């Protein structure tokens, strides 16, 4: 850190009083106001904030990549050395992009062109900015620098042949190929599994030194901020609420918003020493039907395979086992946290236990075996088991009023008449913390967190005994996420609902679960009481998973520099 005090006098990049407006049919709306910060040489600056804070707009302004039709810089300067980037012509700005300032994005799966080879995508930037002589050699060096195995073969491959982590390595190689002074990374690890995230963050720290680059990192994840940042800028609604050194921000936050943000971050290990999830409701705990502790969900030998469509004359590939030998029980009022990385089979398991996809083995919900049931009996089972999905934006019909959406399960199951259902909807909305008037409004009038509450209300309509929640808070901002999790815990305490809680996020799982099952490659590698799994993990994979989770405390950094 001593180098940055020495060079603080001359920042590499300096943003001064930046204002950005959005052009909307109703006129101009402010998106950024008075944003000012400096990036020193060799420094990593993290811009943190929740959705709508303007952090991505800030990075796109620096790159000169704001969509011209909708967003414009109306005031302020962006100084790269002594040049003001906001006053450059398109042509001059093009020469800056990729050469002086490069950028990597959130979605490695869609950020590379699917029809162009990795080699061409790597070399075209080099050719554009540095001439054509040695582009291939540089590309090869770069793939080597980001630790890609068999770099020569990778050059001929196409994006779909690489995993998400490998694609993000290619993106980094591409961005650094012209040795830019500044690298902007917009949520570079958000779409990646936690173990892959740890590798990519390590790589970025390593390359920052090797390529002598300064990094601006945009993220919503305070854990990532704590791991990476030298200095932090906290954005809220388009304005900076606080900026400072990483230790100050985390240990002595001044602004109320920063304090809130940090308080909402789930911390792995925060619940050590306690058996169940924390109590959240003020009401006295409902006595559970203690004598009857037979499991509400009982799963044995569960298997799911894809691609085994029977009766086809020419069979293509052999079937792939997505899930095999999965077995667990969930007791009433308890939560089983199902954790794993992408492709571990956790979502497939969730769908199979509700009979939404074909499976082998035995699944019993509330004492009834599903899979062998008639259509009518299956409907009865569906009443006692509901699902909440990941994306609250996609799981509500945009043309259906919220009240109708919540009442729909009641209608399907023929419960109550019109007025009774209306009363029930109002009651459900109150339960999830929304006003009853919300019933007549449409999904687009609500925020992501509110929509997820609506989805929860819909799931509650039939008073289920079991709810399968598949990454139900993954798309939400941390503060919203914390409130939705609290709501789910409260509903469990008051209504005795059992959850199958599926998530990739170890901290969220720790907060929610009584029992935890860790999945990998379609099987459960470790299962037990939460406390045992988190405090004395037995499986190597569980340990690796926990070690990879970034700790939202810069003092606890596990690396140096």
């Amino acid at each position, binding site marked *: 850190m001593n180098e940055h005090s020495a060079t603080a006098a001359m920042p590499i990049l300096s943003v001064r009083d930046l204002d950005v407006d959005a052009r909307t049919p109703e006129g101009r709306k402010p998106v950024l106001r008075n944003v000012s910060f400096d990036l020193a040489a060799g420094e990593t600056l993290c811009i943190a904030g929740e959705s709508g804070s303007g952090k991505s707009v800030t990075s796109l302004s620096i*790159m000169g*990549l704001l969509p011209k*039709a909708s967003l414009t810089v109306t005031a302020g300067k962006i100084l790269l050395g002594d040049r003001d980037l906001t006053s450059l012509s398109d042509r001059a700005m*093009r*020469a*800056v*992009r*990729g*050469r002086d300032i*490069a*950028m990597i*994005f959130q*979605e490695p799966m*869609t*950020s*590379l*062109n*699917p*029809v*162009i*080879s990795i080699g061409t995508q790597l070399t*075209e*930037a080099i050719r*554009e*900015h540095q001439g054509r002589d040695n582009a291939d050699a540089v590309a090869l060096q770069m793939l080597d620098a980001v630790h890609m195995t068999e770099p020569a073969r990778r050059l001929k491959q*196409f994006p*779909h042949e690489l995993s998400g982590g490998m694609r993000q390595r290619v*993106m980094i190689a*591409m*961005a650094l190929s012209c040795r830019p002074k500044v690298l902007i990374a917009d949520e570079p690890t958000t779409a990646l599994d936690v173990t892959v995230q740890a590798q990519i963050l390590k790589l970025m720290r390593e390359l920052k030194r090797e390529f002598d680059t300064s990094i601006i990192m945009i993220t919503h994840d305070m854990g990532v901020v704590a791991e990476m940042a030298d200095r932090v800028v906290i954005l809220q609604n388009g304005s900076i609420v606080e900026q400072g050194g990483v230790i100050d921000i985390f240990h002595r936050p001044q602004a109320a918003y920063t304090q809130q943000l940090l308080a909402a971050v789930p911390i792995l290990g925060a619940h050590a020493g306690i058996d169940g999830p924390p109590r959240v409701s003020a009401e006295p705990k409902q006595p559970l039907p203690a004598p009857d502790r037979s499991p509400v969900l009982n799963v044995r030998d569960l298997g799911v395979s894809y691609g085994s469509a029977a009766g086809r*004359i*020419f069979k293509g590939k052999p079937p792939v086992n997505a899930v095999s030998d999965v077995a667990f029980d969930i007791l009433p009022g308890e939560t089983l946290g199902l954790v794993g990385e992408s492709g571990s089979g956790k979502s497939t398991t969730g769908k199979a236990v509700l009979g939404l996809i074909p499976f082998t083995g035995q699944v019993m919900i509330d004492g009834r075996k599903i899979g062998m049931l008639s259509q009518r009996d299956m409907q009865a089972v569906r009443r006692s088991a509901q699902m909440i999905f990941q994306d609250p934006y996609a799981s509500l019909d945009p043309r259906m009023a919220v009240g109708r959406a919540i009442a729909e399960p009641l209608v399907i199951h023929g419960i109550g008449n019109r007025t009774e259902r209306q009363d029930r909807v109002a009651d459900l909305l109150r339960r999830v913390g929304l006003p009853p008037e919300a019933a007549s409004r449409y999904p687009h009038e609500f925020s992501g967190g509110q929509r997820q509450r609506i989805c929860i209300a819909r799931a509650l309509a039939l008073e289920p005994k079991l709810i399968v929640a598949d990454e139900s808070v993954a798309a939400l901002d941390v503060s919203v996420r914390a409130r939705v999790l609290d709501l789910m815990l409260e509903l469990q305490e008051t209504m005795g609902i059992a959850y199958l809680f599926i998530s990739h996020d170890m901290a969220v799982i720790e907060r929610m679960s009584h029992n935890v099952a860790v999945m990998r490659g379609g099987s459960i590698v470790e299962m037990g009481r939460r406390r045992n799994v988190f405090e004395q993990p037995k499986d190597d994979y569980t340990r690796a998973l926990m070690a990879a989770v970034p700790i939202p405390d810069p003092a606890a950094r596990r690396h140096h520099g």
Partner: protein
Amino acid sequence: MAILFIRRLVQMALILLGVAAITFVLLYALPADPARMIAGRSATAQTVANIRRELGLDQSLPVQFWSYLSNLLQGNLGRSYAQKTEVATLIMARLPATLTLMFSGIVVEVVLGLTLGTIAAVRRGGFVDRLVMMASFVGVSAPQFVVALLLLYVFAATLGWFPMSGYGTFSHVVLPAATLGVLGAGWYARMVRSAMIDVLNQDYVRTARAKGLSSRRITFRHALPNAVLPVIAMIGIDIGQFMGGVVVVEAVYGWPGIGQLAWQAIQQVDIPIIMGVTLTSALAIILGNLVADLIAPVIDPRIRTR
């Protein structure tokens, strides 16, 4: 790969069989009597009955179909009732003209559609975009014979740049191909435009911009190949549409292709020719789809099989 190929062949055979069966049944159900047509108005009932027996038309539908099929499997399409010539010979004589017309029509629609659609997408919301959209709307909605007459009036009758009708030289093919291509060009311009707008909003285009590439390279190297993929799939399906247009265009321009042959045959209830032309166009559509499926992997590595 070999299994895939065999599967494709079986599919093709089944489709052709289905087309043959359906067409045959439809023609059988036709109220017109081919024997009467051949014999003429003044022929006696006896003559008509003789002709019917001679052609095998007095037999039941399954028997007739079976004998047609067994001939077909030996590569024999039968003889024309009216012209007393082998159907295969008639079709082969006219096929080159139709293929020339179709090929030039497809070139016109694809080149015109791609160019206009791309320009409109890049200049989205501007004057050029609106002009292209309006023109494509006219292209899509104008009936083909109207387009044909318009082109004839302007470029043949008034300006005299191209001949009114006929077949043989390049200048003969220009107006028919344009007529045939205008409709498709309108469709493709709209399709390419919306596909391009979609692609230009993709993350990988943003990546390309972030690299500092020129907008020309972004448009042609990064966006266009992705936008063209759905168009290629369309062209295969489109050939069916095209066959309908071919009949009209050949009639208007006196183009000696199988469209005209079919037109005459329909008027004369010349069943073997109608069957032959139908099967030929079905084969053309199948082959067109096959070609589209073969081109797509050249552009899109995700669907390449090794």
